[in-house]
């Protein structure tokens, strides 16, 4: 299959996969289905809309969760993320091994982040739908900037207009103003290339809706402080996905959050957590590996360990002031520059690493911190002593694993389990 067909092959497959997952969930309902079904429907809808845009010549864009997704929602502009293909419903893509072999053929060194190399591979192999325009991401790491420069000049994508909001390094008032202007420029770019317009009244509605989501997200996060944390990490990860992706600022997203909070409240009230035995409360201080679905059940069953928070599930959940247009832009800039998980910790000086670890450990009664040490995260690798010292200071054990979150061959999951077991034993946990 060549040309447009090849571009859509994976998306068509994704639609089929999500249709099958949806049917399975609908045919076999359990007490969690009401929370899982909307998420699957969202992924299905996203893939379907991408197909529809390509087939019907409707504008759509490739962008990232930290480029103020509220704006695309307000513009009714469909978008997808270039690396989303690495995951299917929070587990690794069935094509992962084939794709990992593919990236070895690219002339990008193996010490660069595997996820970003996958992003380039998808472009190079022609298996991403070519969008009308791209909004690149220049934070939080060097790799992502360089990935977009490589995509921008790629033979198949060089005619696709690309805009990149420039993130300042620090988070003071002038940085926020500057980034707010970059976001305004992004809107000008999107309007010019997609024909979709941003109405401020609509943006206000969307931001207010997204504020409701953030309020509920905070409420949910607070419920995870409970001695019996209501859920494992899957739904906490989904909360981030809903708040910062295609359901951002939508009533459907808010409804899902309400359901999530209600479910968590019920479980806390009834002392009936999803993970029955919880002896160890764990902070996984990074993004989630695609092999997490193999690790977390083992953690729960073998050690009674539940991952309470991670880098992607915790943020300040700050609301955006919608009293004026200026306040909205500043709020969007602040949220997307300083609050959004992962961007928040990795962008800027190291204090946020320390602050968040201390905050999470204290607020969530964390027993130990695991820093996976993803091979692509050079800034965190350079922050390891700071994290270790922060943990020592507050008296919580710290483990550095050394993994590739996207390539299980780097450190096999069994080896990860061994390291964690030795750590738990040595620290008298469990």
């Amino acid at each position, binding site marked *: 299959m060549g040309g447009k067909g090849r571009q859509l092959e994976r998306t068509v497959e994704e639609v089929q996969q999500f249709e099958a997952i949806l049917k399975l969930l609908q045919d076999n309902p359990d007490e969690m289905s009401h929370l899982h079904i909307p998420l699957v429907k969202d992924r299905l809808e996203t893939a379907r809309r991408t197909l529809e845009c390509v087939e019907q010549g409707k504008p759509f864009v490739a962008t990232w969760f930290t480029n103020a997704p509220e704006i695309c929602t307000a513009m009714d502009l469909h978008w997808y993320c270039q690396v989303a293909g690495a995951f299917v419903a929070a587990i690794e893509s069935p094509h992962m091994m084939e794709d990992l072999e593919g990236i070895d053929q*690219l*002339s*990008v*060194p193996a*010490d*660069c*982040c595997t996820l*970003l190399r996958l992003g*380039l591979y998808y472009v190079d192999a022609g298996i991403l739908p070519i969008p009308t325009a791209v909004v*690149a991401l*220049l934070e939080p*790491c*060097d*790799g992502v*900037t*360089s*990935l*977009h*420069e*490589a995509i*921008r*000049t*790629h*033979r198949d994508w060089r005619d696709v207009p690309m805009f*990149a909001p*420039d*993130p*300042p*390094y*620090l988070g003071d008032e*002038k*940085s926020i103003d*500057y980034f707010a*202007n*970059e976001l305004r*420029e992004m809107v000008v770019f999107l309007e010019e290339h997609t024909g979709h317009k941003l109405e401020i009244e609509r943006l206000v509605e969307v931001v207010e809706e997204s504020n409701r989501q953030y309020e509920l997200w905070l409420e949910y996060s607070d419920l995870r402080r409970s001695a019996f944390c209501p859920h494992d990490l899957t739904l906490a990860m989904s909360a981030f996905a809903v708040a910062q992706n295609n359901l951002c600022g939508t009533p459907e997203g808010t409804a899902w959050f309400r359901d999530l909070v209600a479910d968590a409240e019920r479980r806390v009230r009834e002392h009936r957590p999803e993970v029955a035995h919880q002896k160890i409360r764990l902070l996984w201080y990074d993004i989630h590996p695609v092999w997490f679905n193999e690790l977390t059940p083992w953690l729960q069953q073998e050690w009674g360990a539940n991952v309470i928070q991670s880098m992607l599930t915790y943020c300040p959940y700050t609301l955006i002031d919608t009293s004026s247009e200026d306040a909205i832009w500043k709020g969007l800039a602040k949220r997307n520059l300083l609050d959004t998980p992962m961007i928040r910790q990795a962008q800027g*000086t*190291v204090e946020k690493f320390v602050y968040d670890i201390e905050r999470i450990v204290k607020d969530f009664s964390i027993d130990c911190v695991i820093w996976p*040490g993803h*091979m*692509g*995260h*050079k*800034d965190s*690798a*350079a*922050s*390891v*002593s*700071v994290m270790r010292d922060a943990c020592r200071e507050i008296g919580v054990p710290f483990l550095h694993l050394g993994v590739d979150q996207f390539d299980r061959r780097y450190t096999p999951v069994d080896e990860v389990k061994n390291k964690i077991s030795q750590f738990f034993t040595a620290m008298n946990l469990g």
Partner: protein
Amino acid sequence: MKSKTLREFAGMAAALGNPATRSWKKQGRGVMGYFCSAIPEEIFTAAGLLPFRIRATGSIGTELSDAHFSNLNCSFVRHCFNVALLGEYDFLDGLVLVNSCDNLRRIYDHWTSQLSTSFVRIMSFPRKTGPPQVDWYQRELTELRSGMEEHFGLEISDARLWESIRLHNETRRLQRQLYQLRKTEDPPISGADTLAVIVAGTAMPKETYNGMLRELLDELREAEGITDYRARLMVLGSILDDPEYLRVIEDQGGLVVTDSTCFGSRIIWKDVREEGGDPIQALAQYYVADRHSCPRTFGEHERRAEFVREMIREFKVDGVIGERLSFCDQWGFAQYSIQNDFREDGVPYLSLEREYILSGVGQLRTRIQAFLETLEG
């Protein structure tokens, strides 16, 4: 190496401490360290401070910095911080950084917590080159200027800044003249020696340096050229401050006639505007938008590629060697685009991984040897 001046430059490039810096300090004058070519030395000179670009020449290990960085971080950063922890940078009165890369930006965090340098600043350097980015950097530089004035109790006047800009432009003009000499069929200076000259320029007072460089240029104009080479090469990459690395290449018969590195042509090819308006604006305009960028900057690949093509044409380059420090993401992805460009252009290209400290020389020789053989057809 016949020239006394060249030997002096080589000596300065081969060690961190040098007679010029020592003499400067003896006069009770300050030294400002800085990482990355995106930081305007001109401001330090205008403040009466000696700009000293940080490197880790002579470092043999990373045993101290390994407690702060991991083996996923690039060796340049680990060696530099190790050298600093060993006290070899205790002569600095201040240090200025920008968020150059994910490895380097963390040096700021560790330096401020582990070392007692009294003035340490990190500035936010834009990743794009448009007018808003120039304005942004102008504000950053203005804050740096006032921060230095306050800390060191001095005034950095506009007049001093323009004077400093003219002085640094003169340095760049002289350095470009050195490069011009290498365009000839029999260049009078090797790539390794040229690198030593450029590196020395980041570690000594510019007035002294310019005087020495003028002498060297006069000598080279009369000197016999190098004729016994097998191919004319260009080196492309990031931090390369070790002339010995190029000497290994040149010992195999590949004469390095030009480069695009951040201790090379990228930092000297253009000048800062010498008059008109705010000198800080002139510096911001130059460092953000006018000079040739590295792959850290987004949206500039075409301009970078055109610069390289121009170099290849003007210096009659037979082949290009790309050198990348392991764990550098910026050059990691750039390699992909560069290789595609060269494939389209039909330019022979050899991509090399390296550590900051010269190592694996045998393997390097073999790769160079093989590359030269392919160039010779």
